[in-house]
């Protein structure tokens, strides 16, 4: 009995010693279609091989639960060292002191690797809070057959866009000019933002003023409502993510979405084409798109800052990032990536071309989740005909002003 006790004690001390010699880094990553556990663990294992004595503990959470997980982890005092976050959350997290600024750790070489616009998405109050890991731009995906059958050319202005939708729209036959989203979800706001930015509208301008109630913003929302007359019925029950199912039926003229979904439609036999989102009537811009990025941030609760930075830089080196983008089919945030052969394919070109016309999704917005709720109220009330765009956006502006304080 005593011998057993001895052995157990020695083993315990030994194991403790081993455990203490290891540095553990906690990393939070999302999972879900594309982001697989296997891929991300492979990166962790590779890092561990190159850095003996280090153990990476990866925590996974489903995409839809990422915000909840981040909030509760921070709230419980158990925030992971390295976190994958959506860039639109940076202002809220930074203001609450939950993530640390990274300016001093970003070398000029690293800066140059990415498009300037990309850095804009992760900068808040003059500081950089994350390194971009995934980026997306969007363009219009259209059904070539429906366009031909109805004698529609590719629209280059908003009037032409409306005309195109009108011509194709034939609800009696179950054919819809455009597919749109209206459900209470972040992607609906982004769909609206496409038109807002195309018309030089903004939620918050560069000086920090709330400008969502200005005439060009009102025009954008009015246009969204007008277009909805030529969209599928009940757009309030649709999220952008599910519109692909509708487009695949071959009975929708066009809609705005990611490249992967376009590929899905091609697989299902739809003859697909692309065109960039045309600039609005109040703008001189030719084209426009919303740039959405996700980034890697480091939590302020971390006790292993150097190791965290090391891992972050490891994940976002040119090779690793390119590997990642190619595997998952994301728009490459690094300038040189576009020269890679895969990204030369015809369906990538519009999305990469759109980058230079892009504007960050949440530029200037200090409290995205709250602002999102307010914008959804406005969008939905206009779509339902409960209010006109001007009143709805004035109401929204009033509340967003409070949120921006």
């Amino acid at each position, binding site marked *: 009995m005593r011998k057993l006790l001895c052995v157990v004690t020695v083993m315990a001390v030994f194991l403790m010693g081993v455990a203490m010699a290891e540095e553990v880094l906690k990393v939070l990553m999302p999972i879900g279609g594309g982001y697989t556990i296997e891929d991300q663990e492979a990166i962790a294992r590779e890092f561990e091989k190159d850095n003996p004595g280090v153990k990476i503990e990866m*925590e996974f959470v489903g995409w839809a639960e990422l915000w909840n997980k981040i909030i509760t982890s921070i709230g*419980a005092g*158990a925030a992971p060292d390295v976190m994958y976050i959506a860039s639109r959350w940076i202002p809220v997290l930074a203001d609450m002191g939950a993530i640390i600024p990274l300016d001093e750790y970003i070398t000029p070489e690293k800066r140059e690797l990415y498009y300037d616009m990309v850095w804009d998405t992760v900068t808040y109050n003059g500081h950089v809070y994350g390194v971009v890991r995934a980026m997306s731009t969007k363009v219009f995906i259209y059904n070539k057959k429906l366009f031909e059958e109805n004698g529609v050319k590719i629209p280059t202005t908003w009037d032409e866009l409306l005309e195109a939708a009108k011509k194709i729209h034939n609800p009696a036959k179950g054919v819809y000019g455009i597919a749109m989203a209206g459900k209470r979800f972040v992607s609906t706001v982004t769909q609206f933002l496409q038109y807002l930015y195309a018309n030089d509208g903004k939620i918050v301008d560069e000086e920090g003023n709330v400008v969502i109630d200005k005439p060009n913003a009102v025009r954008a929302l009015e246009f969204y409502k007008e277009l909805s007359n030529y969209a599928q019925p009940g757009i309030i029950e649709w999220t952008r993510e599910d519109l692909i199912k509708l487009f695949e039926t071959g009975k929708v003229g066009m809609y705005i979405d990611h490249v*992967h979904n376009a590929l899905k439609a091609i697989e299902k036999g739809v003859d697909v084409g692309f065109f960039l989102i045309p600039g609005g009537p109040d703008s001189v811009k030719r084209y426009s798109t919303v740039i959405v990025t996700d980034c890697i941030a480091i939590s302020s609760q971390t006790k292993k800052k150097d190791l965290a930075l090391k891992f972050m830089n490891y994940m976002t080196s040119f090779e690793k990032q390119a590997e990642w983008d190619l595997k998952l089919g994301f728009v490459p945030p690094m300038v040189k990536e576009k020269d890679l052969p895969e990204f030369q394919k015809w369906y990538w070109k519009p999305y990469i071309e759109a980058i230079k016309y892009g504007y960050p999704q949440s530029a200037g917005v200090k409290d995205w989740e709250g602002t999102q709720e307010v914008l959804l109220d406005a969008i939905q009330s206009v779509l339902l005909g409960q209010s006109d765009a001007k009143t709805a956006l004035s109401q929204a502006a009033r509340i967003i002003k409070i949120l921006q304080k």
Partner: protein
Amino acid sequence: MKMSTKRRLKGIIYQILAVAAMIFLLLPIYQMLITALRPSDLPWISPMPLIPEKVSFRNFVQAFQLVPRLPRYLLNSFLYGLGVSVISLGIAIPAGYALARFEFRLRRPLMVFIIYANMFAPIMLLIPIYVIMKRFGLINTYLSVILSGSIFTIPLSTWLVTSYMQTVPKDIEEASFIDGCSVYSAIYRIILPMISPAVIAVFIYAFITGWSQQFILALVLIKTDQLMPITQGLYQFFSRSSVRWNEMMAAILMSTAIPVVLFLSVQRYIVKGLTTGSLKG
């Protein structure tokens, strides 16, 4: 003569009503079924045909390819369900015995008090539960999820056992005490068989709650995907751009099969066990 036509009429009407009720209860499951059976490379059709044009079981296979750890998640959900039922029974039976046998004046208010946990919105309990579990070093263990799930099932479980226990006459176990039995063996050997319907009912109810409610609690208590229940595992069918609905429906169907089979095997007892005795409150 009049009686038998009346009977037949009733029979027909009742059948129609029953079928209508079944349609209401099973329509979404049927929707799931036809979505799962449709080959995923076929576009969906609007309106959706009631009988799929092509049937294929590929989605069921594909589900495992998209989410390789699916069997593990199913196992986890099963373990959580099982764990919650075991703990619930473990607490409810002694508590029910005490409440049924000993005359508390506070018994009725105690009943109200017991359901308090169910009145609080679960998300508010996430962090305190996390704190407790952390203190006991139970983060990222099966036990933490099981214990937290039990918080919500103990109330009703105790209620059910107490009610049923009250219908068992006291003299039965008194007789065994005289014979020298300890309280535990009395409960185990004599009372338990007599309240078996309640035990089965609690088992099923707690299992279902453990099986389906794990989602919100799992958010803070689980770190690695080894412990993920099926509800979280299914999120791997979601992507940033869209959702693999066909395969996900197949996965949900497969996961639903487990509790359904469990149910079917104990079905007779559930109905008996759930209310005998609750007539007395």
